């Protein structure tokens, strides 16, 4: 190689080396900073030596070069190549290490630890809600005005082998410890996800919405008639890139509005009868170019099974008012021993629930209807038992509007300007409103003293209107203020109307 060639090659080499050095420094600084620093120093020294040799060569160019100069240059060339190769090997080693190293992540989306291939992940999540409740009416007892820990729910979830998901979420709120969710799921195919354990039954739309996306602090009245968390096995899936989704499960059969942990024998089947629960849902325009309809989704959920209670274990739930006050729907025992004349579940239990949500830009809507039919019986004398089917219904319309322009959605939102201290950014502000009703079947009140429901305690219907303001400081922290007025048809002494309930709730919530 001629010296002029060597000179050109060397200039190219230096550029390459410097570029490599910068890349290496940026890419691997945190991994092997010491080694790279050492290599960089040695590279700089080589650079200086080459510069000196080049200057000498230029000075001697007219008179030719010596063998010593050539040997020295070749030696320098070798040293540069060695350094280049070391950089290369270091980079390969770093890349190999990165491929096998577990990654730990901490972000507002949560905390996680994942294997290098991402197929094994464990996440730590949490849902905390601290509420204040005040009632601006003369009906609700003063003791209902309270601060309370509504949700204290740490959660562990993750994935094994890329397809097996699990989730474990206890709840420590309300001075008790319960397992809220505990399940494992195998994602075999998009259309074949098998899930087993305890989780939300697939019937109610608002019930299935993740907590952090519920617009109101407490769910609407339709959720009082659909199962909450239940124990069972479920097949779910999706087709058409999420255009169609479905769930079909075989469960113990939670009673209306409650989880199986509220059973008299918690988290086991209390009557030996099972219940099918399922839902089909579609977002027909999810993949279309009609953006105004992309977030339109509708479907129908339902359940079918037997529920066989007894006068001592009726397996019939109460309902909660919008202010979370419990009201018995059915008569409890008022007879003297040995007769027990409580109303109890005694046969078919069927629910169906058409449901819909829609959102466009900063406007969102959610609506659902539920009918829950239950065969009930009541022993009215030592020899006579009354039986009938009671069809209770509920529905709601819920509206939401982001004042700050964020896009509304059933399952996500993105705070455009998160709240910051000493900097611009006020988070996202959302106005919400809803109207919801619950009707107890007239058949429940037929029969006077022998009726299944007591008109002096059970309203024939509850209708409520609520408004709220949600301040999302960011994706994780929100403050809510809800005001709701509920009116009752009946439910008071002599069949008179129970007084209006006026509740003012506030919540500080943190979810990650």
């Amino acid at each position, binding site marked *: 190689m001629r010296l002029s060639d060597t000179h050109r090659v060397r200039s190219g080499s230096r550029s390459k080396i410097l570029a490599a050095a910068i890349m290496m420094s940026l890419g691997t600084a945190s991994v092997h900073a010491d080694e790279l620093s050492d290599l960089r120093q040695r590279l700089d020294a080589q650079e200086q030596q080459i510069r000196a040799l080049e200057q000498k060569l230029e000075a001697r160019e007219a008179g030719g070069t010596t063998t010593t100069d050539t040997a020295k240059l070749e030696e320098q060339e070798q040293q540069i*190549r060695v350094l280049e190769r070391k950089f290369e090997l270091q980079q390969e080693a770093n890349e190999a290490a990165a491929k096998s190293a577990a990654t730990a992540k901490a972000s507002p989306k949560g905390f996680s630890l994942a294997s290098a291939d991402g197929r094994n992940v464990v996440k730590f999540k949490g849902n905390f809600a601290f509420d204040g409740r005040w009632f601006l009416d003369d009906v609700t007892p003063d003791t209902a005005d309270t601060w309370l820990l509504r949700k204290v729910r740490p959660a562990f979830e993750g994935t094994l082998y890329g397809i097996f998901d699990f989730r474990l979420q206890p709840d420590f709120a309300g001075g008790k410890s319960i397992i809220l969710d505990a399940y494992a799921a195998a994602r075999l195919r998009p259309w074949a996800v098998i899930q087993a354990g305890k989780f939300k039954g697939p019937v109610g739309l608002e019930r299935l919405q993740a907590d952090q996306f519920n617009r109101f602090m407490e769910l609407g009245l339709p959720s009082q008639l659909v199962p909450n968390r239940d124990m069972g096995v479920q097949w779910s899936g999706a087709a058409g890139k999420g255009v169609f989704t479905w769930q079909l499960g*075989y469960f113990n059969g939670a009673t209306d509005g409650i989880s199986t942990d509220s059973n008299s024998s918690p988290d086991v089947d209390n009557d030996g009868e099972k219940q099918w629960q399922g839902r089909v849902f579609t977002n027909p325009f999810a993949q279309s170019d009609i953006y105004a309809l992309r977030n339109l989704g509708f479907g129908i959920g339902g359940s079918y099974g037997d529920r*066989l209670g007894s006068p001592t274990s009726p397996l019939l739930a109460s309902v909660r008012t919008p202010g979370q006050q419990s009201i018995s729907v059915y008569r409890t025992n008022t007879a003297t021993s040995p007769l027990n004349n409580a109303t109890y579940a005694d046969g078919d239990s069927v629910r169906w629930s058409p449901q819909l949500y829609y959102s466009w830009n900063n406007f969102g809507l959610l609506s659902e209807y539920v009918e829950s039919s239950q065969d009930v019986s009541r022993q009215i004398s030592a020899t006579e038992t009354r039986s009938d089917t009671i069809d209770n219904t509920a529905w709601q319309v819920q509206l939401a509007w982001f004042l700050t322009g964020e896009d509304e959605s059933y399952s996500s939102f993105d705070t455009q300007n998160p709240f910051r201290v000493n900097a611009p950014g006020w988070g996202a502000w959302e106005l919400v409103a809803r109207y919801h009703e619950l009707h107890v079947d007239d058949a429940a009140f037929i029969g006077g003293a022998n009726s299944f429901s007591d008109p002096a305690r059970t309203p024939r219907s509850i209708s409520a209107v609520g408004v709220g303001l949600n301040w999302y400081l960011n994706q994780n922290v929100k403050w809510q203020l809800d005001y709701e007025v509920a009116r009752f048809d009946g439910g008071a002494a002599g069949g008179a109307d129970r007084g209006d309930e006026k509740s003012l709730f506030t919540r500080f919530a943190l979810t990650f």
Partner: protein
Amino acid sequence: MTATFRSWTRRTILAATLAGALTGAAITHAAPATLLNVSYDPTRELYEHYNKEFVRYWKAKTGEDVSIRQSHGGSGKQARTVIDGLPADVVTLALAGDIDALVTNGKLLPVNWQSRLPHNSSPYTSTIVFLVRKGNPKGIKDWGDLVKPGVSIITPNPKTSGGARWNYLAAWAWALKQPGGSEATAKEYVRKVFSNVPVLDTGARGSTTTFVQRGIGDVLLAWENEAFLSIKELGPDKVEIVVPSISILAEPPVTVVDKVALRRGTRDLATEYLKHLYSPEAQDIIARNYYRPIDPTVAARYENQFPKVNMVTIADFGGWTRAHQIHFADGGVFDQIYQPH
């Protein structure tokens, strides 16, 4: 009604179970048998050729398709990867010591694995030679020339590469056989050799890249097949082979990884895959890829391809277990003599 409903429930459970079974059957559709061969660095080309031969042979013999995947890297590193869970049906590594690690550290195959196939489970052998620049500008003829001033040597890291261990032991054997040779002089000689190594790659193929493509060093201590392959790829006007006065008989062994193969249901296929390496067809492929065949007929046919070399064997070092403990284990001789540049 309850009895009727219970009967209905049983039927639905039966139907659901059947549906689940059918779903599972649909998901686990039949696929051709697969094998994973985890090998060391320089065998890429050999097994690319051999796998094609075996696929053809197996199809002709059984009518079944088989798909074979290869993984290559430094032999020691590959062994650790298999111990860590890489599901190798077979391993074809550079030295028996690395497979022994699968026995002792991974409990993946029986202790007597080496007696299960002929010739200590080594269907081919090789040795260590020098690859130098065309014209041999540094005048390297034998091991003693490696420690002359100004000679830059390329060899991989004995901690991760099987080939590097053969290099190391060949150098040690030469030093021992010099007049006045002893453990102490051999240790000092090997120290000097490694003080002339500017870059330690993790595997033999990496070292070839360093020497041939990056133009670093005056001499590459190489597998014989790797040296031939370099000449074939670069042409004889770039590099040439120097055969030292003494070298070492490298016997790269092969074996089925029983625990993996049993779990995957591939043990019989994997065994046939390795047995076929001893067939005349495979031995010919082995020779064409510059490994020394053990079949006498094939070896005779390629006699002129391979130079005559005076070779020691691993038995001269007391076997791989002893050699490993003395030289390559943590705190062994190599750790004592090697200082990174």
